[in-house]
């Protein structure tokens, strides 16, 4: 599959739309009445300075949802949304392989009885999914750490495994929360490549949170800019780059 180009995205169908979301913790308003949409097949970035409410926004999408008033996390998964976390949320004592296999949970359905016996259906199912997982492992080039508990891996690799786990869910929409945070340049470049490859290869729609502007401008088809919980800009990277409010927010003009 080929990633759609910009004009196709504009015309394409909306995968998810966020309308008038607000969120407050105690008296602090983290998000104020933000609306935007994500279209099928695009890479959509949400950016903003520290504390702008990006992660809160993402949590709202996965945990609370839109239109469905009370969406439980489990429903997000069945609804085809997968995500990675700002602070890696891997299953630390499990191996890379098990972590990514865990991403297949929803797609496996052999019951307790077969699981206990393991011979037959459960084993066939396990092998079938193992094949899928090995494809992802090959794709992310993490074959050598297959059997290593992820807790012992360096940060960069952990991020990659987390991406792998999210991919294993074969999501329609992939939410990446600062996938490049804390990485060195080389690792960042690798990660960028994987994000683009995922978008190209699997045709997955990606929503990306990042505050490294350079990365975002290269990757994203469209960008939403948040500041103090409010949307201050929305458009293609070039449009956003030219937006005065964005420049102010990033350069720190007094409000």
């Amino acid at each position, binding site marked *: 599959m080929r990633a759609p180009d910009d004009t196709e995205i504009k015309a394409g169908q909306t995968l998810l739309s966020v309308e008038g979301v607000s969120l407050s913790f105690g008296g602090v308003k983290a998000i104020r009445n933000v609306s935007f949409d994500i279209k099928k097949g695009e890479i959509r970035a949400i950016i903003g300075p520290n504390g702008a409410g990006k992660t809160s926004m993402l*949590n709202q999408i996965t945990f609370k949802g839109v239109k469905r008033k009370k969406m439980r996390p489990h429903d997000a998964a069945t609804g085809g949304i997968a995500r990675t*976390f*700002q*602070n890696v*949320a891997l299953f630390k004592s499990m191996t890379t392989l098990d972590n990514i296999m865990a991403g297949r949970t929803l797609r496996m359905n052999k019951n307790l009885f077969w699981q206990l016996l393991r011979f037959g259906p459960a084993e066939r199912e396990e092998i079938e999914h193992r094949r899928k997982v090995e494809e992802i492992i090959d794709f992310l080039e993490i074959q050598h750490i297959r059997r290593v508990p992820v807790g012992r891996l360096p940060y960069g690799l952990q991020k990659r495994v987390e991406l792998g786990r999210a991919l294993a869910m074969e999501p329609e929409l992939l939410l990446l929360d600062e996938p490049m945070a804390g990485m060195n340049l080389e690792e960042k470049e690798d990660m960028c490549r994987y994000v683009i490859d995922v978008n190209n290869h699997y045709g997955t729609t990606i929503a990306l949170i990042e505050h490294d502007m350079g990365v975002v401008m290269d990757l994203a088809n469209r960008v939403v800019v948040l500041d103090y919980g409010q949307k201050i800009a929305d458009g293609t990277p070039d449009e956003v780059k030219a937006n005065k409010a964005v420049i102010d927010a990033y350069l720190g003009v007094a409000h």
Partner: protein
Amino acid sequence: MLCVKPYNWACKIFIIPFWEMWELPDIFVQTLWEGLVGGTLYSLIALGFVLVFKASGVFNFAQGIMVVFAALSLVGLHAIGVPAFLALALAAVIMLVLAISVERIVLRPLVNQPDIILFMATFGLTYFLIGFGELIFGGDPKLMITKQLYIPTGTYSIDFAGGRVELQKLDITAMVVASTMVAVLAVFFSKTRIGRALRAVADSHKAALSVGISLNQIWVIVWFAAGLVALVTGIMWGARSEVSFALEIIALKALPVLILGGFTSIPGAIVGGLIIGIGEKVGEIYWGPLFGRGIESWLAYMIALIFLLFRPQGLFGEKIIERV
């Protein structure tokens, strides 16, 4: 007489107990008093747990055996001819030695291990202290040296509503000592430098280390404080029945108090203890007959469990916030 056939059960649950409270107010007041005293003693044991948990994150299973060990040391020293108050001081010294040993031998090598490992280590400590205590003092029960410590015995009988309410002098002493203990600890932890350091450690080990507070010292201090609390608890429980290893089982009663009050809250331990103490006595006396009595062994846990379902972090525990 009050209960008619179809509503028999409902009546026994909702009417009879209250009617009994009304009919025999002296018994009711006595029940509340017994609950209060029992609760205070539970609070004392729970306090020992809280001190250690707050400062070192260790769920100290050995608190119960420390109670026995402290009391045995006191009685044992007195038995070989040490004067009572000197024995008391020496028992406190023994608890200090215990605290230092525990810190050196158990806690220091296990620093930064998961909670459950530390919990298990205190479990090992419990076994060790049982064996050690029985080896030195013997497994037979001892009499608490109540008289020698000038702990008053006897009863105040107060006429009340046509009956009498009996207040044991021993229990009153227990209440006073427990309250004093709590007050002293509260002042110690809020006013002194060490106390502030301890709170810093409770908030964050790393933060405490970065401002130069010695974790090891703090641990010795809290374990010693827990040891002192254990000593006081041991004296009080010992005076109520006797000093024997069976006392260790009683210490389990502090656990529902802990989940009710929160593992990290001193006021929680106190209020929790009182709720559990009064709750289980009132429950046993007025609703116990429905179950054939003797329900105290689990009633406290059930009370705590019900509270817990509404407040998972306990009454005074800090709200648990998980970040991803």
